[in-house]
């Protein structure tokens, strides 16, 4: 089946980047995620789909320990990034989040200049030795986020003054500035118009050359357009995980079929 896909970007996507085993999440008494096993591949866009409250965002937030910030949240199970347990006591969550970047649903630029938005991460992680190096990281990141040409003449202007689509691409530039290995995106296009959405989707495909991208989306068509692998969550369970083509043409679980075809599941 794969050899029929003529337009796929040629990258080596054999290696497992993140391996999750038996992941359970409780918010107080609520059992939000039940025994999830997933292998997320390197250089691959993986889409998480499912109805609201199914646990997909919760699982995404486990991958860079964003759930640590919620006091009632309890995560058990095993999540390994390149074989290393990310919940190990010796792992610094701040360092982890530099490796596993995140882009949120609503563009949330810092109330700072465009330049400082992108330079913030490299500065706190000490990734640049001098101003010239920092300038280069900012330019490269903005180029990767397909924003450079639109903002190169006003880098000192506030990031919050950009349009919604530009702000979201600025947030992507900020996320890639620390050279992460994995980029998590939680509904990155839900606040964007179709043109900005298409630009972000094109960007996601380009980012795949360097990172492993995991995207949570409510748009099934978006999952179908941008991802190579799709995971369907329902009521806290990972129901089905497979090649996007297979999930959208021949899902094996009736619950997946009900959801993607727009039936009451």
């Amino acid at each position: 089946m794969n050899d029929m896909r003529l337009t796929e970007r040629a990258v080596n996507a054999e290696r497992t980047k993140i391996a999750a085993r038996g992941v359970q999440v409780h918010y107080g008494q609520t059992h939000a995620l039940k025994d999830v096993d997933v292998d997320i591949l390197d250089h691959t866009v993986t889409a998480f789909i499912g109805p609201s409250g199914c646990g997909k965002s919760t699982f995404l937030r486990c991958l860079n320990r964003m759930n640590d910030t919620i006091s009632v949240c309890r995560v058990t199970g095993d999540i390994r990034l390149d074989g290393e347990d990310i919940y190990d006591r010796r792992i610094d969550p701040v360092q982890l989040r530099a490796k596993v970047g995140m882009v949120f649903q609503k563009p949330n630029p810092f109330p700072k200049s465009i330049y400082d938005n992108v330079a913030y991460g490299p500065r706190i992680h000490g990734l640049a030795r001098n101003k010239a190096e920092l300038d280069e990281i900012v330019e490269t990141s903005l180029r990767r986020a397909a924003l450079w040409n639109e903002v190169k003449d006003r880098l000192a202007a506030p990031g919050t003054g950009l349009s919604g689509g530009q702000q979201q691409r600025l947030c992507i530039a900020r996320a890639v500035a620390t050279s992460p290995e994995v980029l998590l995106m939680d509904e990155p296009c839900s606040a964007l118009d179709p043109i900005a959405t298409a630009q972000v989707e094109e960007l996601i495909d380009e980012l795949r050359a360097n990172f492993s991208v995991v995207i949570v989306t409510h748009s099934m068509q978006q999952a179908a357009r941008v991802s190579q692998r799709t995971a369907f969550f329902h009521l806290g369970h990972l129901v089905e995980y497979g090649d996007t083509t297979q999930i959208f043409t021949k899902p094996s679980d009736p619950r997946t079929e009900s959801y993607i075809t727009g039936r009451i599941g």
Partner: protein
Amino acid sequence: MNTDGHILSAFDRDLETIQALIMKMGGLVEVATLDAARALETRDEDLARLVRDSDGAIDALEAQVNDEVARIIALRAPTAGDLRTVLTVLKIAGSLERMGDYAKNIAKRSGVLAQFTPIEGAAGTIRRMAKQVEQMLKDALDAYIRRDAVLATDVRARDREVDQIYNSLFRVLLTHMLEDPRNITACMHLHFIAKNIERMGDHATTISEQVIYLVTGSMPEEARPKDDRTPYVASPKS
């Protein structure tokens, strides 16, 4: 496959509409097939004309299916079982349109054949063959509506019987032509008619394969039983 209704009920109505259209096409093709064979056997030129004229309605239905399918793909972006429904409807409509053309062609030839002395047994054999193909088509369409892959597999196996009737008729016609060259014109027409029906059987088989794809998500893998040996025949006895 999931047969619950969509949250968006207009999508259900769209899918029902295109499936109803191919059922309507199928009904017209069944009638045309049987009528063409009957017109040949009974030398009924009025009936033959009726068959020729009815093909326009089948073609119009196919055009309507094509338009509706394009609209559904554009507006509804069907996936999984819905996608397979839409794709199979499109292919089945194509097969039915071809079957309609073959029936029309048979009706045209029957007008010429009415001017010749009948070839003994040929028209009866052709009618039997047409009946067999019509039953295959009927069952394939029933299997479609019932999402019945078992019945579809059975239809697919039955094409072999059509091939066998065609083989024997091929030899009979060859014998008649060798015995008396004045039979050649009639036998040539009869052979084309038999070949048309044999092709119609292949289309009924294609439809049953589409049913298997619709239900299971993949085309049948094992080769289908075929028995058309006429490509290798050099003389009536060979």
